[in-house]
């Protein structure tokens, strides 16, 4: 198990129009590792991420970051959603500098800082710095979204199926990128996905969720080390692990849905 994270929730509850999506949900996110969460559609995954990012208010319960209550959106907990949220009037460079400028109370930053430049290079978007979102492909847009989130150096990155609208080639490229970020920046990431292979490739730990109301029923450690390449997908051990996870997922989630 990873080190206990600074992001935690206790007795979290969310009710929409009389139906309870999340109820008495208590968890703590392992720090400096990638955790993937797989749960059936409608189980409450997206609701959980929106609550953690404070984009929705919980009906009851508390979210804490480094033991301090979190009650408003803040750049320490960034959500990268499935939907495109790039600001259409800002260039790639300005998107990535946006949160940084706010945090450092600067109106104009003419040169990217070394950190932001490194992020842009790592995500392969440094050559796109003066383009607007409409001039980018779907994969490039998601790279910029990730770079914009990482530029503010969040304590926790929440990813809500960010690659689901992309083709397989772009997905594979971005899986590599996210895995690399997790390893190099020791970034705490909670990654929601529907793909067992994607979850297994990305994560250090995989969670099975059921719901609604959402519950984490199993946690599996992923035994493939930190540095992973695309070849991992074709290794028998990886296939075996995915099968084992699938069996458990079907047994637990299938029984509830």
């Amino acid at each position, binding site marked *: 198990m990873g080190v206990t994270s600074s992001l935690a929730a206790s007795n979290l509850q969310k009710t929409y129009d009389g139906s309870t999506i999340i109820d008495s949900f208590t968890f703590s996110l392992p720090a400096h590792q990638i955790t993937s969460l797989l749960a059936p559609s409608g189980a409450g995954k997206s609701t959980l991420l929106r609550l953690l*990012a404070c984009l929705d208010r919980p009906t009851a319960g508390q979210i804490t970051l480094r033991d301090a209550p979190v009650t408003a*959106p803040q750049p320490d907990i960034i959500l990268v959603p499935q939907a495109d*949220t790039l*600001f*259409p009037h800002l260039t790639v460079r300005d998107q990535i500098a*946006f949160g940084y400028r*706010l945090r450092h109370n600067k109106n104009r930053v003419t040169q990217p800082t070394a950190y932001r430049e490194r992020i842009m290079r790592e995500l392969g978007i440094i050559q796109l710095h003066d383009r*607007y979102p*409409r001039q980018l492909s779907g994969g490039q847009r998601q790279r910029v979204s990730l770079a914009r989130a990482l530029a503010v150096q969040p304590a926790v990155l929440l990813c809500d199926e960010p690659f689901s609208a992309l083709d397989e080639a772009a997905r594979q490229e971005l899986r590599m990128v996210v895995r690399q970020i997790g390893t190099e920046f020791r970034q705490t990431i909670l990654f929601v996905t529907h793909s067992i292979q994607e979850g297994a490739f990305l994560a250090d730990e995989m969670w099975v969720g059921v719901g609604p109301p959402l519950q984490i029923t199993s946690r599996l450690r992923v035994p493939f080390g930190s540095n992973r390449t695309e070849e991992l997908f074709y290794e028998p051990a990886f296939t075996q692990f995915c099968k084992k996870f699938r069996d458990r997922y079907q047994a637990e989630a299938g029984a509830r849905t």
Partner: protein
Amino acid sequence: MITLIAWAVTTAALITVTHTVWVEHLARPKISAFFWFAPSRQPRVTAVATFATAFAIWHLLSIMLANPLLLPTPAATIQALASFPRMELAHNALHSILRVAVAFSLASAVGLTMGLAAGLFPWIHRAILPLNSALRYIPPTAFIGLTIVWFGVDEGSKIALIIIGVLFYIIQMTVDVARTFPRPLAEAAPNLGATDWETFRYIIWPYCVPAVLSVLRVNLGAAWTFVVAAEVVSAQTGLGHMMAISQRFLLTPQLFALLVLTGIIGFLSDALFGIAIRRTSTWA
């Protein structure tokens, strides 16, 4: 000679339109015949050709009618425009422009503020939109007499009429612009650390500016309608005042000359808005 040229221009325009409709919309297979969003290949040439055709048709109609009291020729209109004492014309045009500028600035400031507030905050929307919708349907020209009673025969009544004429439309149209702002973007900004004011200042406002300028562009035309209406009824200066005199003495060429001048001022202000919209929407 002019008539021959007018016939030639009109015939050429007819052939060009027929040819374009055939080439662009009928002969070439495409997704839809109503593909209006494709950029024109030569927009300036098209615009000049349209103006030339309009003048040619005007000339031919005036020749056919042969009655300058009903419809003067374009040449007679230009002659009439040149016959006005230049200082008097400039003085009156400037008065109208100033009235529009002052009233339109006030209406824009109030209308944009209220429209953005109603577009972004549901409780403000619920509070002011029903009343605004009711007021929008009252014909502004019905207020001409009242504005004179309320604000006197001087500038106040004219400025008030223009404001009444455009304010409620600016509010409604700005509400519509603000409500098109995508909600996920409004969530992304605070998530990156922006306060409500910073979200508005750096994200919502720049996103809305091109559409807001389009709203103002449309309503500036309406403002000119109301300044002329106010000046025709009660004014000692302004293009509307000159039009009223021309009407009274049946000086149709002079009246047409003033209409053309108003059109030119409108065209120039519209072109300025066009430049501003292009500059603020390079990202779109």
